[in-house]
């Protein structure tokens, strides 16, 4: 056992070099508002936790995965059947990816409905939207990596849609595929995006996002603020450390339990190895988070007036994404007040569209 004096000296040595007292002081003063909607504050942390799980399991998968058309499927099969706990690592990686996108969506809609995007948090919102886009890009690029039939044809359809954009479409599709068709070059490229480009970008934007959250503190819903002002009572708060942190830790454990259960009871399927010369099997559809767009494209006729249906849908999706990303800017009127009804209405409409069309895309 170390003596008290030795421990104090060690702590002092570390404090001098790491500034532990300052960090402790900062954590002691950081507080989280407590109100009826506090529960939604946990979803950002859960998304971050799932991202960390993704990084860790991804690194483990990298030890065995080989990104070539001749070896990719077999290497994943090897991970699933021969590598000790390989099935668990891969299943957790795949399930965590899906759960992360789900919690990211929940986090985004909670920010919308709690109006947490408002001044001065516009850049926090924008960086969050970029992170969501990066998460979707992670999903799209990772989907192809096992090189199975469904993934192959879904990527083919996805890149074909990109190719239909006027002007930029064909070069963009060629850039994504590394050629005119989905093939070995696409796999290598998607692997590169998935394990190098996207993680790098995500880490960078994530740091900006967290720094902005830190700078502006946790937002309180306008209604709670008004109620507090009306009553003349300050909004209750809890210390971030350890109170909120321990609760967040509980949420992470809960997420880990859900993740482990899904991975153990429903291990992620491997499917059948992709055969580029085989006809596309029936019922090809993308991952659930692209189903709404997929179903919209399916519903549209091939031509609407003089426009191609696909192109029209792409223009629509792009405009919707831009409109949504600029939410903090159109959500405030000239007097600087939040158009809460408009924003809530837009949020409900988007949520209804995404959930209804995703369900229709899944079942029809």
């Amino acid at each position, binding site marked *: 056992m170390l003596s008290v004096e030795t421990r104090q000296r060690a702590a002092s040595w570390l404090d001098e070099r790491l500034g532990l007292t300052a960090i402790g002081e900062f954590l002691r003063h950081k507080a989280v508002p407590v109100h009826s909607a506090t529960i939604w504050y946990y979803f950002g942390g859960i998304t971050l936790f799932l991202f960390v799980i993704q990084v860790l399991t991804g690194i483990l998968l990298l030890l065995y995965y080989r990104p070539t058309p001749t070896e990719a499927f077999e290497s994943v099969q090897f991970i699933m059947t021969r590598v000790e706990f390989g099935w668990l690592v891969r299943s957790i990686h795949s399930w965590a990816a899906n759960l992360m996108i789900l919690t990211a969506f929940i986090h985004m809609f909670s920010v919308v409905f709690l109006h947490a995007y408002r001044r001065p948090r516009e850049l926090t919102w924008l960086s969050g939207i970029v992170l969501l886009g990066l998460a979707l890009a992670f999903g799209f690029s990772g989907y192809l990596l096992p090189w199975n039939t469904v993934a192959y044809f879904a990527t083919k359809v996805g890149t074909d849609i990109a190719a239909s954009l006027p002007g930029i479409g064909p070069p963009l599709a060629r850039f994504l595929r590394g050629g005119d068709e989905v093939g070995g070059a696409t796999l290598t490229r998607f692997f590169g995006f998935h394990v190098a480009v996207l993680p790098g970008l995500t880490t960078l934007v994530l740091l900006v996002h967290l720094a902005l959250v830190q700078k502006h503190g946790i937002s309180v819903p306008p209604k709670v603020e008004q109620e507090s002002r009306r009553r003349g009572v300050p909004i209750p708060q809890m210390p971030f450390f350890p109170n909120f942190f321990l609760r967040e830790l509980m949420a992470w454990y809960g997420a880990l*339990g859900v993740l*482990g*259960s899904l991975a153990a009871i429903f291990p992620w399927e491997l499917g059948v190895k992709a055969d580029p010369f085989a006809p596309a099997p029936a019922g090809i559809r993308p991952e659930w988070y692209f189903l709404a767009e997929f179903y919209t494209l399916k519903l549209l006729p091939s031509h609407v007036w003089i426009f191609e249906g696909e192109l029209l849908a792409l223009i629509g999706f792009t405009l919707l994404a831009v409109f949504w990303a600029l939410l903090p800017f159109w959500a405030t009127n000239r007097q600087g007040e939040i158009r809460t009804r408009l924003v809530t209405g837009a949020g409900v409409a988007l949520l209804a569209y995404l959930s209804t069309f995703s369900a229709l895309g899944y079942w029809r």
Partner: protein
Amino acid sequence: MRRALAVAAAAGWLLEAAARDTCLECHAVLEGALQRPAVLYKADVHARHGFGCAACHGGDPSTDDPKLSMSPARGFRGKIARTAIAKLCAHCHSDASLMHKYNPRQRVDQYAQYVTSVHGQRIAQGDAAAATCTDCHSVHDIRNVKDSRAPVHPLRLPETCAHCHADAQRMARYGIPTDQFAKYRRSVHWEALAERGDLSAPSCASCHGNHGATPPGVASVTAVCGTCHVLLEELFNKSPHQPVFASMGMAGCIVCHGNHEVMRPSPAMLAGEKSVCAQCHDPDSSGAKAGAEMARLINQLRASLERSSAMLERAARSGMEVSEAQIRQQEAQEALVKARVAVHAFRLEAVREPVEAGLKITAESYRAGVAALEERNRRRIGLAVSLVTILVTMTGLWMAIRAIEKPVGGS
């Protein structure tokens, strides 16, 4: 100028006259049997290639006057006698240079084959009731064999043959049975053709020939079946049965499988009540015992294959990755096929060898399925332990939070 106009008008009239087919023009406005050819001919392959009625019936289609257009002096032949139809068709269809203009890959030996056929021989003997070209190919609406509406299209051919051969009254004079089509419709070949739409499945012409239609003789049955079942023919010809069957005048394959009513083969043909071996072998003979043993081996492999497939299926439904074992199951399935084929060597060892190879694979697959299910159970136990640990930790955290947030000095 006037001269040029007159020449142009004359040329136009000549072209129009040459393009006209007054046969069709007149017959189209007639009624009943006289109108029917004109209506049907629109869909005829010959019409599409520019041939008019006169190509077969002679006459002059450029004139409106029926006396002239149907004048024997202008080559009008009228209705073609049934005994003359084949020769008339052969006039063009046996002419290689002419046929090459329309279809370079078109065969030109149909008539040469036809005259050797039973149909052709009877026609040559003056039997006008015997089948000729138009009985199978239709008349006035002849279509390409690839056209699914053609009576000689593979899917329709059996019915076309049955049109005459299932007609008891028509066949009575020839003293041949009329149940071939009814039997064929119960066969595995019909199932493949009609139910699965497999155009390569055998129908009447596959065994009897088409233009040279003749029933296969005793000596040629094996060769006929062997055109598709190559390996079976090879095994049978090397088997001890071949010389025995030949010496007894028994027609190879059909002794066991029948001819028109070829049923789906099964191990039941080797042993038991439905045993075809029992037709010749006494129940206590070594032949019957060998047959029974072959049936047992094949049934054993089939049962083992079903058992291991069910086990792998169960494991796969549980989310376990067993695709490698499932791929190996295909090898066991191939071994089963090989064993069934090997029956035709009529040697027990020839059947035993693939069966044993197949059984080895199914045993491995079964073990892989069992191992996968055991692994699934281990995972579930591991999950339960992890969940309990997580719950305990969460409870601990909750208690820690409660302890931290306990009001100072509170009860």
